[in-house]
């Protein structure tokens, strides 16, 4: 099992979700986050007062998948979240040691 964590542009969430559902992914978690990378921030000006906003709003999505699903999932996120502009985000994949469904107590891949 693998955990996939992706930082994407907020407006790309729905497209990413649709692609993942097509692959049979049954759940994901998203959170509003802010951070900076190569995109850097932007400037806001209020009545002439300039503020550099270094932390850009992004969405973090997290989902647990079976080993076989890793490659198609990464591909789906990569294509759906791509605008070909700086700031599209990143995908991280790491090992997942255990998963448990709270209601039934199922564990491992059955719980995904």
């Amino acid at each position, binding site marked *: 099992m693998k955990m996939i964590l992706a930082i994407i542009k907020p407006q790309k969430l729905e497209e990413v979700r649709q692609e993942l559902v097509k692959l049979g992914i049954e759940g994901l978690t998203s959170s509003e986050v802010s951070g900076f990378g190569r995109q850097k921030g932007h400037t*806001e*000006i*209020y*009545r*002439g*007062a300039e*503020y*550099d*906003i270094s932390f850009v709003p992004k969405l973090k999505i997290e989902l647990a998948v079976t080993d076989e699903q890793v490659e198609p999932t990464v591909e789906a996120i990569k294509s759906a979240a791509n605008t070909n502009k700086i700031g599209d985000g990143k995908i991280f994949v790491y090992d997942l040691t255990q998963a448990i469904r709270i209601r039934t107590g199922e564990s491992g891949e059955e719980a995904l």
Partner: protein
Amino acid sequence: MKTKIKNVINLMFITTPMLLISGIALADDKKPVLDTGDTAWLLTSTVIVLLMTIPGIALFYGGMVRKRNILATLMQSFTITCLVTVIWMVLGYSLAFSKGASSFVGNLDLAFLSHLTVEAINGTIPDSVFVIFQATFAIITAALITGAVAERMKFSALLLFIGLWSIIVYSPITYWVWGGGFLGSDGVLDFAGGTVVHINSGVAALVAAVMIGKRKGFGTENLAPHNVALTMIGGSLLWVGWFGFNAGSALGANGTAGMAMAVTQIAAAVAGLSWMFIEWVHNGKPTLLGVVSGAVGGLVAITPAAGFVSPAGAFFIGLVAGAVCYWGAAILKPMLGYDDSLDVFAVHGLGGITGAILTGVFAVEAIGGTAGALEGNSAQIVIQLKGIVATILWSGIASAVILFVIDKVIGLRVDADAEAEGLDINQHGERIN
């Protein structure tokens, strides 16, 4: 309003000898008569001018502070509404409008409003309505100042300052212009309070901003407005209420009120566009905060002029006001380095000065009874400048003295930790979730 009083006085002087000659009993003709139309309009105006402060100013300012200070900011406007009303009832109105011998300040004859009766009439409206209409002006003038000291002033110090300021600064200056004092009798034109309300509060705000010092992180941290949407709602309530402010200051439902309404709408609209386009060229983007601020600047500038100028005059007043107020906030303030947090001086001080001077330029004799420089009466500009200078001096000096004393006694600002925590939790024990 001044012109109205002048007309009444003129009428009395002209008609009295005639009546004496013709032998008609004076009492019947001189008895003031209540006009229901005028009364209805002034009742309405009073209500919407109150709306300018709560929730108008409260939201206008509340949106511009950081989230941790919004409740404190709303609370300042609301509490000032309560506090100034009480002061107005006890002695503020009397100091501003009683007919004393002094040309500087009224007396205490009308303290506690003990003179008010159901029958008492002021012009063509009940005296009770006039008193409360004027109370809403006293309230908003005090509430405007809070923008300069936002996010760092102790609530206790603020209440003390506003209470003393209303008595020592607002009432006398109102008396000078509208209560029978020296500026009114000198011919200073201030239809609805460009001098009394806006220059007065703007100058006090600048003094307060300088004396209390900059906010922690000014110029280094992000102090951006937390919700410009609230500011837009507040600004819109101000615009709507301003019809009560300006057209209400005609003290009647008549042609002067109508013309005041027309020029108010025009000046606000032109000034909103004026600020927005200048900002667009200067910074690359037109902002909501900018267009709303510009409109408020235009409303400020048309305030002294409303009963005296034509629509064309209003157009130019709005155009200049949008530019001047933008310059004050975006260029003058950073150049001098003071932290007038919500630009009270730029919008109300400079907007008020612009309006007061341009009233002397654009006044039309056929509209308000006084000609301005464009009609050949350039002396009016000098008279207007006299009103501006007198107001700046008294408001500036008296505000500084009051603030100095309060600072020595209880201190003006919260400590650095409280400021970082935010006034909502620190001063009031509440927060928005």
